[in-house]
């Protein structure tokens, strides 16, 4: 990545809030998705009526 290319990046991607909040949200949504998939699997295999 050249300095010129890096300079084109929007300011938001360099803000600490953006850097911190996005991965937290990604992990949170992924974890809830896994829980929902487990429940849906339970329905599929008849463990949940």
């Amino acid at each position, binding site marked *: 990545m050249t300095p010129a290319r890096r300079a084109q990046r*929007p300011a938001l*991607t360099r803000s600490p809030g*953006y850097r911190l909040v996005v991965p937290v949200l*990604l992990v949170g*949504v992924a974890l*809830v*998705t896994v829980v*929902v*998939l487990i429940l849906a699997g339970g329905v*599929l295999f008849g463990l949940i009526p």
Partner: protein
Amino acid sequence: MIRLLPIASSVIIVSFAVMVFRRYLQRGGAHLLVWGIGLTMFGIGSFSEAYSTFAWSPTVFRLWYLTGAILNAAWLGQGTVFLLSRRRGTARALLVLLVLGSILATWFIFTTPLNATRFNSDETLSAQYREILPRAATVRRLTPIFNIYGLLTLVGGALYSAWLLWRKEIVPNRVLGNLLIAVGALALGFASVLVRLGLGDYLYVAELIAAIFMFGGFLLATSRTGLSTAAAVSSP
């Protein structure tokens, strides 16, 4: 309120579908076409819910179950498969399986006898469908297969895209847009599980939340605002 929620969802989803089909006509791309089909199914499901708050129709009930409960998430997820898949053959093979599965589900739902005497227009369809559609109906066993595929591909695809773009530190509007799409799709998947657990009253609210988040996410991801740069990455 029970009447307003699915009407509001229908209006949002129809606007969303029109926008996606228009984008497909301008740019092409199988993912846009398949997303448009999935959104149309979502819209038919919401419209069927709205209709069923006024009157009973076995065809409308069957359309609701087919498009709203079985197919829409899987078709939306298939659009994401086309967007992200580097192997066109894999995406096409999965589409063939989805089309065959959809035909099978259509045949099952339209040949299953319904118990119309249990219908009550003051209740949500999701709260009473268990009484209308026989427990042993084969089509009910198919539902989780489609929904698991839809949840994995739609939420997983949106999260993967967001993570990839976040790591590259580019186009934050697409990162946030994909996160909104993931949350909206997850709301739908979560509500579907609640329906199976007997908590069907939450489905209409979850559908409205899903419609707002997914449409908002699409608008944000495809916008060319000051948040974005000219960096070239594939857009929805």
